[in-house]
Protein backbone atom coordinates (compact mmCIF):
# COMPACT_ATOMS: atom_id res chain seq x y z
CA UNK A 1 0.00 0.00 0.00
CA UNK A 2 1.42 3.35 -0.98
CA UNK A 3 0.29 6.29 1.11
CA UNK A 4 0.71 9.82 -0.08
CA UNK A 5 2.83 12.41 1.72
CA UNK A 6 -0.05 14.18 3.42
CA UNK A 7 -1.59 10.97 4.77
CA UNK A 8 1.76 9.82 6.19
CA UNK A 9 2.29 13.21 7.81
CA UNK A 10 -1.11 13.23 9.43
CA UNK A 11 -0.75 9.63 10.59
CA UNK A 12 2.51 10.52 12.29
CA UNK A 13 1.05 13.51 14.11
CA UNK A 14 -2.12 11.61 15.15
CA UNK A 15 -0.71 10.67 18.60
CA UNK A 16 0.25 14.31 19.14
CA UNK A 17 -3.24 15.45 18.18
CA UNK A 18 -4.72 12.78 20.44
CA UNK A 19 -3.11 14.70 23.32
CA UNK A 20 -3.54 18.25 21.99
CA UNK A 21 -7.29 17.97 21.36
CA UNK A 22 -8.44 16.79 24.81
CA UNK A 23 -5.73 18.55 26.81
CA UNK A 24 -5.27 21.85 24.99
CA UNK A 25 -8.21 22.61 22.70
CA UNK A 26 -10.88 21.10 24.97
CA UNK A 27 -9.86 23.00 28.14
CA UNK A 28 -9.63 26.29 26.23
CA UNK A 29 -13.16 25.72 24.88
CA UNK A 30 -14.43 24.75 28.34
CA UNK A 31 -12.96 27.92 29.84
CA UNK A 32 -14.38 30.00 26.96
CA UNK A 33 -17.85 28.53 27.58
CA UNK A 34 -17.58 29.09 31.32
CA UNK A 35 -16.67 32.72 30.61
CA UNK A 36 -20.09 33.44 29.09
CA UNK A 37 -22.06 31.57 31.75
CA UNK A 38 -23.61 33.08 34.84
CA UNK A 39 -23.10 32.14 38.46
CA UNK A 40 -25.70 31.72 41.17
CA UNK A 41 -23.13 32.96 43.68
CA UNK A 42 -22.74 29.56 45.35
CA UNK A 43 -20.40 27.96 42.85
CA UNK A 44 -23.20 26.79 40.58
CA UNK A 45 -23.25 27.95 36.97
CA UNK A 46 -26.10 28.15 34.52
CA UNK A 47 -26.15 28.75 30.80
CA UNK A 48 -27.55 32.10 29.85
CA UNK A 49 -25.01 33.56 27.47
CA UNK A 50 -23.77 36.91 28.65
CA UNK A 51 -20.77 39.14 28.12
CA UNK A 52 -21.16 40.59 31.60
CA UNK A 53 -18.13 38.71 32.87
CA UNK A 54 -15.98 40.43 30.27
CA UNK A 55 -17.37 43.90 30.99
CA UNK A 56 -16.71 43.19 34.66
CA UNK A 57 -13.10 42.25 33.89
CA UNK A 58 -12.50 45.31 31.72
CA UNK A 59 -14.21 47.74 34.08
CA UNK A 60 -12.38 46.63 37.17
CA UNK A 61 -9.45 48.86 38.13
CA UNK A 62 -7.89 45.79 39.72
CA UNK A 63 -7.53 44.15 36.31
CA UNK A 64 -5.35 46.94 35.00
CA UNK A 65 -3.24 46.98 38.13
CA UNK A 66 -2.71 43.20 37.90
CA UNK A 67 -1.77 43.36 34.24
CA UNK A 68 0.55 46.29 34.90
CA UNK A 69 2.32 44.32 37.65
CA UNK A 70 2.57 41.12 35.62
CA UNK A 71 3.76 42.83 32.44
CA UNK A 72 6.26 44.80 34.52
CA UNK A 73 7.72 41.54 35.86
CA UNK A 74 7.74 40.01 32.37
CA UNK A 75 9.54 43.05 30.94
CA UNK A 76 12.12 43.26 33.76
CA UNK A 77 12.81 39.52 33.59
CA UNK A 78 13.11 39.71 29.81
CA UNK A 79 15.61 42.58 29.97
CA UNK A 80 17.83 41.02 32.63
CA UNK A 81 17.72 37.46 31.31
CA UNK A 82 18.39 38.62 27.73
CA UNK A 83 21.31 40.77 28.88
CA UNK A 84 22.87 38.02 31.00
CA UNK A 85 22.06 35.30 28.46
CA UNK A 86 23.57 37.28 25.61
CA UNK A 87 26.89 37.97 27.31
CA UNK A 88 27.22 34.48 28.77
CA UNK A 89 26.60 32.94 25.34
CA UNK A 90 28.93 35.48 23.72
CA UNK A 91 31.67 34.63 26.17
CA UNK A 92 31.28 30.89 25.59
CA UNK A 93 31.18 31.12 21.79
CA UNK A 94 33.70 33.86 21.04
CA UNK A 95 36.09 33.96 23.97
CA UNK A 96 36.54 30.36 25.11
CA UNK A 97 38.96 28.88 22.59
CA UNK A 98 38.79 25.21 23.47
CA UNK A 99 35.59 23.69 22.14
CA UNK A 100 35.59 21.06 24.85
CA UNK A 101 35.91 23.68 27.59
CA UNK A 102 33.10 25.71 26.01
CA UNK A 103 30.82 22.65 25.98
CA UNK A 104 31.73 21.89 29.60
CA UNK A 105 30.96 25.45 30.74
CA UNK A 106 27.73 25.37 28.73
CA UNK A 107 26.70 22.18 30.54
CA UNK A 108 27.45 23.82 33.89
CA UNK A 109 24.97 26.56 32.92
CA UNK A 110 22.27 24.08 31.91
CA UNK A 111 22.39 21.51 34.72
CA UNK A 112 20.23 23.53 37.17
CA UNK A 113 17.52 23.61 34.51
CA UNK A 114 16.93 19.90 35.16
CA UNK A 115 16.39 20.44 38.87
CA UNK A 116 13.24 21.65 40.57
CA UNK A 117 12.29 25.30 39.93
CA UNK A 118 10.46 25.49 43.22
CA UNK A 119 13.49 24.36 45.16
CA UNK A 120 15.70 26.83 43.33
CA UNK A 121 13.28 29.60 44.22
CA UNK A 122 13.10 28.67 47.90
CA UNK A 123 16.88 28.57 48.03
CA UNK A 124 16.98 32.38 47.88
CA UNK A 125 15.29 32.61 51.29
CA UNK A 126 18.38 31.87 53.43
CA UNK A 127 20.31 34.37 51.34
CA UNK A 128 17.97 37.31 50.97
CA UNK A 129 16.04 37.08 54.27
CA UNK A 130 16.17 39.68 57.01
CA UNK A 131 18.67 37.46 58.85
CA UNK A 132 19.99 36.07 55.59
CA UNK A 133 23.57 35.76 54.46
CA UNK A 134 23.63 38.99 52.45
CA UNK A 135 22.30 41.11 55.29
CA UNK A 136 24.60 39.38 57.78
CA UNK A 137 27.59 40.00 55.54
CA UNK A 138 26.73 43.64 54.86
CA UNK A 139 26.20 44.30 58.55
CA UNK A 140 29.40 42.54 59.56
CA UNK A 141 31.31 44.67 57.08
CA UNK A 142 29.68 47.76 58.50
CA UNK A 143 27.97 48.95 55.32
CA UNK A 144 24.55 48.99 56.93
CA UNK A 145 23.28 49.24 60.52
CA UNK A 146 19.89 47.61 60.07
CA UNK A 147 19.05 44.70 57.74
CA UNK A 148 17.83 45.69 54.29
CA UNK A 149 14.13 44.89 54.15
CA UNK A 150 13.68 45.05 50.40
CA UNK A 151 15.80 41.99 49.68
CA UNK A 152 13.16 39.33 50.39
CA UNK A 153 9.39 39.42 50.04
CA UNK A 154 9.53 42.28 47.56
CA UNK A 155 9.44 42.99 43.84
CA UNK A 156 13.20 42.75 43.91
CA UNK A 157 13.06 39.16 45.17
CA UNK A 158 10.48 38.25 42.52
CA UNK A 159 12.69 39.51 39.70
CA UNK A 160 15.75 37.79 41.17
CA UNK A 161 13.89 34.47 41.33
CA UNK A 162 12.57 34.80 37.77
CA UNK A 163 15.94 35.74 36.31
CA UNK A 164 17.56 32.89 38.23
CA UNK A 165 15.06 30.40 36.79
CA UNK A 166 14.69 31.67 33.25
CA UNK A 167 18.07 32.95 32.04
CA UNK A 168 18.80 29.42 30.89
CA UNK A 169 15.98 29.76 28.32
CA UNK A 170 17.96 32.66 26.85
CA UNK A 171 21.43 31.12 27.01
CA UNK A 172 20.60 27.94 25.07
CA UNK A 173 18.97 29.45 21.95
CA UNK A 174 21.39 32.43 21.82
CA UNK A 175 24.31 30.04 22.20
CA UNK A 176 22.94 27.95 19.33
CA UNK A 177 22.49 30.87 16.96
CA UNK A 178 25.88 32.38 17.85
CA UNK A 179 27.62 29.04 17.36
CA UNK A 180 26.36 29.09 13.77
CA UNK A 181 28.06 32.41 13.00
CA UNK A 182 31.00 31.69 10.73
CA UNK A 183 34.11 32.96 12.54
CA UNK A 184 35.60 33.88 9.15
CA UNK A 185 32.95 36.55 8.75
CA UNK A 186 34.19 38.20 11.92
CA UNK A 187 37.80 37.84 10.73
CA UNK A 188 36.93 39.41 7.41
CA UNK A 189 35.21 42.31 9.13
CA UNK A 190 38.26 42.87 11.35
CA UNK A 191 40.51 42.80 8.29
CA UNK A 192 38.26 45.33 6.60
CA UNK A 193 38.86 47.62 9.56
CA UNK A 194 35.62 47.16 11.49
CA UNK A 195 35.70 48.08 15.15
CA UNK A 196 34.53 45.77 17.92
CA UNK A 197 31.40 47.83 18.20
CA UNK A 198 30.71 47.52 14.44
CA UNK A 199 31.13 43.76 14.59
CA UNK A 200 28.70 43.58 17.47
CA UNK A 201 26.18 45.85 15.75
CA UNK A 202 26.34 44.53 12.19
CA UNK A 203 27.24 40.86 12.59
CA UNK A 204 26.68 39.36 16.01
CA UNK A 205 23.51 41.13 17.10
CA UNK A 206 21.57 40.58 13.84
CA UNK A 207 22.68 36.96 13.66
CA UNK A 208 21.70 36.14 17.24
CA UNK A 209 18.38 37.96 16.98
CA UNK A 210 16.50 34.71 16.36
CA UNK A 211 17.99 33.10 19.46
CA UNK A 212 16.93 36.08 21.56
CA UNK A 213 13.42 35.88 20.09
CA UNK A 214 13.14 32.18 20.85
CA UNK A 215 14.26 32.78 24.42
CA UNK A 216 11.84 35.69 24.74
CA UNK A 217 8.93 33.40 23.83
CA UNK A 218 9.75 31.13 26.76
CA UNK A 219 10.44 33.92 29.23
CA UNK A 220 7.33 35.94 28.37
CA UNK A 221 4.94 33.00 28.32
CA UNK A 222 6.28 31.54 31.56
CA UNK A 223 6.25 34.81 33.52
CA UNK A 224 2.80 35.78 32.22
CA UNK A 225 1.40 32.39 33.22
CA UNK A 226 3.09 32.15 36.61
CA UNK A 227 1.70 32.88 40.03
CA UNK A 228 3.87 30.71 42.21
CA UNK A 229 7.02 32.84 42.23
CA UNK A 230 5.10 36.08 42.74
CA UNK A 231 3.12 34.58 45.59
CA UNK A 232 6.06 33.16 47.52
CA UNK A 233 8.77 35.72 46.76
CA UNK A 234 6.63 38.83 47.19
CA UNK A 235 5.37 37.52 50.53
CA UNK A 236 1.79 38.06 49.41
CA UNK A 237 2.36 41.78 48.90
CA UNK A 238 2.00 41.66 45.14
CA UNK A 239 -0.65 39.91 43.10
CA UNK A 240 -0.40 38.59 39.56
CA UNK A 241 -3.00 37.96 36.87
CA UNK A 242 -2.89 34.19 37.30
CA UNK A 243 -2.71 34.54 41.08
CA UNK A 244 -5.96 36.52 41.10
CA UNK A 245 -7.45 33.94 38.77
CA UNK A 246 -6.49 31.17 41.18
CA UNK A 247 -8.05 33.03 44.10
CA UNK A 248 -11.28 33.56 42.14
CA UNK A 249 -11.40 29.82 41.49
CA UNK A 250 -10.84 29.26 45.20
CA UNK A 251 -13.99 31.23 46.03
CA UNK A 252 -15.88 29.54 43.17
CA UNK A 253 -16.16 32.65 40.99
CA UNK A 254 -15.78 30.51 37.89
CA UNK A 255 -17.35 32.72 35.17
CA UNK A 256 -15.45 35.92 35.92
CA UNK A 257 -12.25 33.95 36.49
CA UNK A 258 -12.80 32.23 33.13
CA UNK A 259 -13.31 35.57 31.38
CA UNK A 260 -10.06 36.91 32.80
CA UNK A 261 -8.30 33.66 31.83
CA UNK A 262 -9.47 34.01 28.22
CA UNK A 263 -8.27 37.63 28.12
CA UNK A 264 -4.89 36.55 29.48
CA UNK A 265 -4.57 33.62 27.06
CA UNK A 266 -5.35 35.88 24.09
CA UNK A 267 -2.84 38.47 25.33
CA UNK A 268 -0.07 35.86 25.72
CA UNK A 269 -0.81 34.40 22.28
CA UNK A 270 -0.66 37.91 20.78
CA UNK A 271 2.68 38.60 22.45
CA UNK A 272 4.09 35.31 21.15
CA UNK A 273 2.68 35.96 17.67
CA UNK A 274 4.41 39.35 17.73
CA UNK A 275 7.73 37.68 18.57
CA UNK A 276 7.13 35.02 15.91
CA UNK A 277 6.91 37.79 13.31
CA UNK A 278 10.57 38.52 14.01
CA UNK A 279 11.71 34.92 13.69
CA UNK A 280 10.54 31.88 11.75
CA UNK A 281 11.08 29.52 14.64
CA UNK A 282 10.48 26.37 12.63
CA UNK A 283 13.09 27.29 10.05
CA UNK A 284 15.35 28.44 12.84
CA UNK A 285 15.34 25.15 14.74
CA UNK A 286 15.54 22.83 11.75
CA UNK A 287 18.53 24.64 10.25
Amino acid sequence: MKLNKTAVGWLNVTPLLAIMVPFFIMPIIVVAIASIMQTDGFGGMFMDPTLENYTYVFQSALTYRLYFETIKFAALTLIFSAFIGFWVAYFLVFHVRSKLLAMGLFLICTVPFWTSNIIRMISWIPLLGKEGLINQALMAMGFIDAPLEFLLYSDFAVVVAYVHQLTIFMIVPIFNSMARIDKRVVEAALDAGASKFDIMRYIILPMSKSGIALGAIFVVSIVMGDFFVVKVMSGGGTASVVGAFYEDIGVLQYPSAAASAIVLTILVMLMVALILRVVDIRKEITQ
Partner: protein
Amino acid sequence: MTDVTNATISTRGKRRARRNSSDRTWTFYVLAAFFAFYVIALYGPMLSIYILSFQDLRGGLVFPMRGFSLYWFNELIMQTRAGDVSGSFTRSIYLAIAVTVITVVFSFMAGMAFRRRFRGDTIVFYLMIGSLVAPGLVLGIGIGLGFDMAGIPTNWFTSALGAQLSWTLPFGILVMFAVMSRLNSDWEEAARDLGASRAQTIGLVVLPVLAPGLIAVALFGFTLSYDEFARTLQTAGAQNTLPLEIWSMTLNVTSPALYALGTVSTVISFLIIGVSLGSIILLQRRNAARKNISE
Protein backbone atom coordinates in the same frame (compact mmCIF):
# COMPACT_ATOMS: atom_id res chain seq x y z
CA MET B 1 50.14 51.66 -5.55
CA THR B 2 52.28 48.73 -4.46
CA ASP B 3 53.41 50.74 -1.48
CA VAL B 4 49.83 51.23 -0.44
CA THR B 5 49.08 47.54 -0.85
CA ASN B 6 52.18 46.58 1.04
CA ALA B 7 51.27 48.97 3.79
CA THR B 8 47.77 47.48 4.06
CA ILE B 9 49.15 43.98 4.09
CA SER B 10 51.64 44.82 6.76
CA THR B 11 49.08 46.45 9.07
CA ARG B 12 46.78 43.56 8.45
CA GLY B 13 49.59 41.19 9.31
CA LYS B 14 50.31 43.14 12.45
CA ARG B 15 46.69 43.14 13.45
CA ARG B 16 46.41 39.43 12.89
CA ALA B 17 49.60 38.82 14.83
CA ARG B 18 48.31 40.91 17.68
CA ARG B 19 45.04 39.02 17.62
CA ASN B 20 46.80 35.69 17.84
CA SER B 21 49.35 36.56 20.47
CA SER B 22 47.21 38.49 22.93
CA ASP B 23 43.58 37.97 22.06
CA ARG B 24 42.93 38.22 25.77
CA THR B 25 41.87 41.86 25.66
CA TRP B 26 40.11 43.60 28.53
CA THR B 27 36.74 42.36 27.21
CA PHE B 28 37.81 38.79 27.86
CA TYR B 29 38.54 39.46 31.51
CA VAL B 30 35.34 41.46 32.02
CA LEU B 31 33.24 38.73 30.43
CA ALA B 32 35.07 35.95 32.27
CA ALA B 33 34.34 37.71 35.55
CA PHE B 34 30.73 38.19 34.47
CA PHE B 35 30.44 34.49 33.63
CA ALA B 36 31.97 33.46 36.95
CA PHE B 37 29.54 35.72 38.78
CA TYR B 38 26.63 34.16 36.89
CA VAL B 39 27.71 30.62 37.79
CA ILE B 40 28.13 31.57 41.46
CA ALA B 41 24.68 33.19 41.51
CA LEU B 42 23.29 30.09 39.79
CA TYR B 43 24.66 27.53 42.23
CA GLY B 44 25.26 29.55 45.40
CA PRO B 45 21.67 29.70 46.67
CA MET B 46 21.11 26.01 45.96
CA LEU B 47 24.22 25.07 47.93
CA SER B 48 23.01 27.05 50.92
CA ILE B 49 19.79 25.05 51.26
CA TYR B 50 21.62 21.74 50.88
CA ILE B 51 23.92 22.75 53.72
CA LEU B 52 21.08 24.02 55.91
CA SER B 53 19.10 20.79 55.47
CA PHE B 54 21.70 18.94 57.58
CA GLN B 55 20.97 20.89 60.77
CA ASP B 56 19.65 19.23 63.92
CA LEU B 57 16.44 19.78 65.87
CA ARG B 58 17.31 23.40 66.68
CA GLY B 59 17.76 24.29 63.01
CA GLY B 60 16.12 27.33 61.46
CA LEU B 61 15.61 28.65 57.94
CA VAL B 62 18.71 30.85 57.87
CA PHE B 63 22.41 30.70 58.67
CA PRO B 64 24.23 30.14 60.99
CA MET B 65 24.04 26.39 60.86
CA ARG B 66 22.73 24.88 64.09
CA GLY B 67 24.18 21.45 64.73
CA PHE B 68 24.67 18.68 62.22
CA SER B 69 22.35 15.68 61.81
CA LEU B 70 19.97 13.88 59.51
CA TYR B 71 17.04 14.84 61.74
CA TRP B 72 15.05 16.68 59.05
CA PHE B 73 15.45 13.87 56.52
CA ASN B 74 14.10 11.48 59.11
CA GLU B 75 11.23 13.91 59.70
CA LEU B 76 10.40 13.71 56.00
CA ILE B 77 10.09 9.94 55.99
CA MET B 78 8.15 9.82 59.25
CA GLN B 79 5.49 12.02 57.65
CA THR B 80 4.37 13.25 61.05
CA ARG B 81 4.62 16.94 60.33
CA ALA B 82 5.40 17.06 56.69
CA GLY B 83 2.44 15.30 55.13
CA ASP B 84 2.60 12.44 52.65
CA VAL B 85 6.07 13.03 51.21
CA SER B 86 7.02 9.47 50.29
CA GLY B 87 3.66 8.77 48.64
CA SER B 88 3.80 11.93 46.55
CA PHE B 89 7.38 11.12 45.69
CA THR B 90 6.47 7.65 44.36
CA ARG B 91 3.57 9.07 42.35
CA SER B 92 5.81 11.74 40.82
CA ILE B 93 8.34 9.13 39.72
CA TYR B 94 5.70 6.86 38.15
CA LEU B 95 4.06 9.83 36.45
CA ALA B 96 7.41 11.09 35.15
CA ILE B 97 8.23 7.64 33.72
CA ALA B 98 4.87 7.48 31.91
CA VAL B 99 5.30 11.03 30.59
CA THR B 100 8.84 10.23 29.43
CA VAL B 101 7.87 7.11 27.48
CA ILE B 102 4.90 8.81 25.78
CA THR B 103 6.87 11.99 25.07
CA VAL B 104 9.73 10.11 23.42
CA VAL B 105 7.49 7.98 21.20
CA PHE B 106 5.06 10.72 20.19
CA SER B 107 7.79 13.34 19.67
CA PHE B 108 9.71 10.93 17.50
CA MET B 109 6.67 10.29 15.30
CA ALA B 110 5.79 13.98 15.08
CA GLY B 111 9.43 14.81 14.36
CA MET B 112 9.41 12.32 11.48
CA ALA B 113 6.19 13.90 10.17
CA PHE B 114 7.60 17.43 10.29
CA ARG B 115 10.71 16.49 8.31
CA ARG B 116 8.65 16.80 5.16
CA ARG B 117 6.08 19.45 4.51
CA PHE B 118 2.57 18.08 4.33
CA ARG B 119 -0.71 19.83 3.83
CA GLY B 120 -1.87 21.38 7.09
CA ASP B 121 1.46 21.00 8.86
CA THR B 122 1.53 24.70 9.79
CA ILE B 123 -1.75 24.34 11.68
CA VAL B 124 -0.40 21.42 13.70
CA PHE B 125 2.80 23.35 14.35
CA TYR B 126 1.05 26.44 15.69
CA LEU B 127 -1.34 24.29 17.71
CA MET B 128 1.73 22.86 19.38
CA ILE B 129 3.25 26.30 20.02
CA GLY B 130 -0.11 27.42 21.45
CA SER B 131 -0.12 24.49 23.84
CA LEU B 132 3.42 25.34 24.90
CA VAL B 133 2.78 29.01 25.71
CA ALA B 134 -0.78 28.87 27.09
CA PRO B 135 -0.94 29.71 30.83
CA GLY B 136 -0.57 26.37 32.60
CA LEU B 137 -3.01 27.01 35.42
CA VAL B 138 -5.73 28.07 32.95
CA LEU B 139 -5.30 24.83 30.99
CA GLY B 140 -5.29 22.88 34.25
CA ILE B 141 -8.57 24.42 35.39
CA GLY B 142 -10.09 23.86 31.93
CA ILE B 143 -9.11 20.20 32.06
CA GLY B 144 -10.44 19.89 35.61
CA LEU B 145 -13.76 21.49 34.65
CA GLY B 146 -13.98 19.40 31.47
CA PHE B 147 -13.45 16.15 33.38
CA ASP B 148 -16.00 17.34 35.90
CA MET B 149 -18.60 18.02 33.17
CA ALA B 150 -17.93 14.62 31.59
CA GLY B 151 -18.34 13.00 35.00
CA ILE B 152 -14.82 11.56 35.04
CA PRO B 153 -12.91 11.99 38.31
CA THR B 154 -9.56 13.77 37.98
CA ASN B 155 -6.57 11.69 38.90
CA TRP B 156 -2.81 12.02 38.76
CA PHE B 157 -2.47 9.16 36.25
CA THR B 158 -5.24 10.33 33.91
CA SER B 159 -5.98 14.06 33.82
CA ALA B 160 -2.62 15.14 35.27
CA LEU B 161 -0.80 12.85 32.84
CA GLY B 162 -2.57 14.49 29.89
CA ALA B 163 -2.06 17.97 31.29
CA GLN B 164 1.66 17.40 31.64
CA LEU B 165 1.89 15.95 28.13
CA SER B 166 0.35 19.13 26.72
CA TRP B 167 3.55 20.83 27.94
CA THR B 168 6.24 18.15 27.54
CA LEU B 169 5.22 17.10 24.01
CA PRO B 170 5.73 20.50 22.34
CA PHE B 171 9.01 20.80 24.22
CA GLY B 172 10.09 17.34 23.14
CA ILE B 173 9.17 18.03 19.53
CA LEU B 174 11.15 21.29 19.48
CA VAL B 175 14.17 19.34 20.74
CA MET B 176 13.40 16.64 18.15
CA PHE B 177 13.52 19.30 15.40
CA ALA B 178 17.03 20.25 16.43
CA VAL B 179 18.05 16.58 16.64
CA MET B 180 16.53 15.64 13.28
CA SER B 181 18.29 18.46 11.47
CA ARG B 182 21.40 16.31 11.82
CA LEU B 183 19.78 13.28 10.21
CA ASN B 184 20.87 13.00 6.59
CA SER B 185 18.08 11.59 4.44
CA ASP B 186 20.71 10.11 2.07
CA TRP B 187 21.37 7.40 4.66
CA GLU B 188 17.75 6.29 4.61
CA GLU B 189 17.75 6.31 0.84
CA ALA B 190 20.91 4.21 0.81
CA ALA B 191 19.26 1.72 3.18
CA ARG B 192 16.21 1.50 0.92
CA ASP B 193 18.41 1.06 -2.15
CA LEU B 194 20.07 -1.86 -0.43
CA GLY B 195 16.64 -3.46 0.00
CA ALA B 196 15.77 -2.50 3.58
CA SER B 197 12.08 -2.38 4.41
CA ARG B 198 10.56 0.76 5.95
CA ALA B 199 10.68 -0.83 9.43
CA GLN B 200 14.28 -1.93 8.94
CA THR B 201 15.29 1.56 7.79
CA ILE B 202 13.84 3.06 10.93
CA GLY B 203 15.10 0.35 13.29
CA LEU B 204 18.59 -0.09 11.86
CA VAL B 205 19.41 3.38 10.52
CA VAL B 206 17.21 6.18 11.88
CA LEU B 207 16.89 5.09 15.52
CA PRO B 208 20.58 4.33 16.15
CA VAL B 209 21.59 7.67 14.61
CA LEU B 210 19.01 9.56 16.64
CA ALA B 211 19.54 7.62 19.89
CA PRO B 212 21.53 10.33 21.74
CA GLY B 213 18.89 12.90 20.74
CA LEU B 214 16.08 10.64 21.91
CA ILE B 215 17.76 10.32 25.30
CA ALA B 216 17.87 14.11 25.44
CA VAL B 217 14.13 14.20 24.74
CA ALA B 218 13.61 11.61 27.49
CA LEU B 219 15.63 13.76 29.91
CA PHE B 220 13.44 16.74 29.03
CA GLY B 221 10.26 14.70 29.46
CA PHE B 222 11.27 13.28 32.80
CA THR B 223 12.51 16.47 34.43
CA LEU B 224 9.74 18.69 33.08
CA SER B 225 7.14 16.26 34.43
CA TYR B 226 8.95 15.67 37.74
CA ASP B 227 8.95 19.45 38.28
CA GLU B 228 5.57 20.33 36.75
CA PHE B 229 3.34 22.42 38.95
CA ALA B 230 0.87 24.79 37.26
CA ARG B 231 -0.86 22.26 35.00
CA THR B 232 -0.90 19.57 37.67
CA LEU B 233 -2.35 21.67 40.49
CA GLN B 234 -5.99 21.39 39.38
CA THR B 235 -5.74 18.04 37.61
CA ALA B 236 -4.02 15.74 40.10
CA GLY B 237 -7.18 14.94 42.04
CA ALA B 238 -7.00 13.95 45.68
CA GLN B 239 -3.41 12.75 45.77
CA ASN B 240 -0.48 15.14 45.51
CA THR B 241 2.58 14.88 43.32
CA LEU B 242 5.93 15.98 44.73
CA PRO B 243 5.89 19.61 43.47
CA LEU B 244 2.37 20.02 44.87
CA GLU B 245 3.62 18.64 48.18
CA ILE B 246 6.52 21.11 48.15
CA TRP B 247 4.08 23.90 47.33
CA SER B 248 1.89 23.13 50.32
CA MET B 249 5.03 22.89 52.45
CA THR B 250 6.21 26.34 51.39
CA LEU B 251 2.88 27.68 52.61
CA ASN B 252 2.75 25.76 55.92
CA VAL B 253 6.09 24.35 56.94
CA THR B 254 8.74 26.73 58.22
CA SER B 255 11.38 24.20 59.20
CA PRO B 256 14.47 22.81 57.48
CA ALA B 257 12.30 19.80 56.49
CA LEU B 258 11.52 21.88 53.41
CA TYR B 259 15.23 22.17 52.64
CA ALA B 260 15.69 18.45 53.27
CA LEU B 261 13.02 17.75 50.66
CA GLY B 262 14.87 20.09 48.31
CA THR B 263 18.09 18.19 48.86
CA VAL B 264 16.46 14.79 48.24
CA SER B 265 14.67 16.05 45.13
CA THR B 266 17.91 17.49 43.74
CA VAL B 267 19.83 14.25 44.39
CA ILE B 268 17.20 12.43 42.29
CA SER B 269 17.49 15.07 39.55
CA PHE B 270 21.26 14.72 39.48
CA LEU B 271 20.99 10.91 39.29
CA ILE B 272 18.67 11.23 36.28
CA ILE B 273 20.97 13.79 34.60
CA GLY B 274 24.00 11.60 35.27
CA VAL B 275 22.42 8.47 33.84
CA SER B 276 21.17 10.36 30.75
CA LEU B 277 24.42 12.16 29.99
CA GLY B 278 26.36 8.97 30.66
CA SER B 279 24.32 6.98 28.19
CA ILE B 280 24.54 9.75 25.57
CA ILE B 281 28.34 9.73 25.84
CA LEU B 282 28.38 5.91 25.74
CA LEU B 283 26.23 5.85 22.60
CA GLN B 284 28.32 8.46 20.87
CA ARG B 285 31.49 6.51 21.68
CA ARG B 286 29.94 3.36 20.27
CA ASN B 287 28.87 5.18 17.11
CA ALA B 288 32.35 6.63 16.72
CA ALA B 289 33.91 3.18 17.22
CA ARG B 290 31.61 1.73 14.57
CA LYS B 291 32.62 4.47 12.19
CA ASN B 292 36.28 3.62 12.74
CA ILE B 293 35.68 -0.05 12.02
CA SER B 294 33.75 0.67 8.84
CA GLU B 295 36.51 2.97 7.67
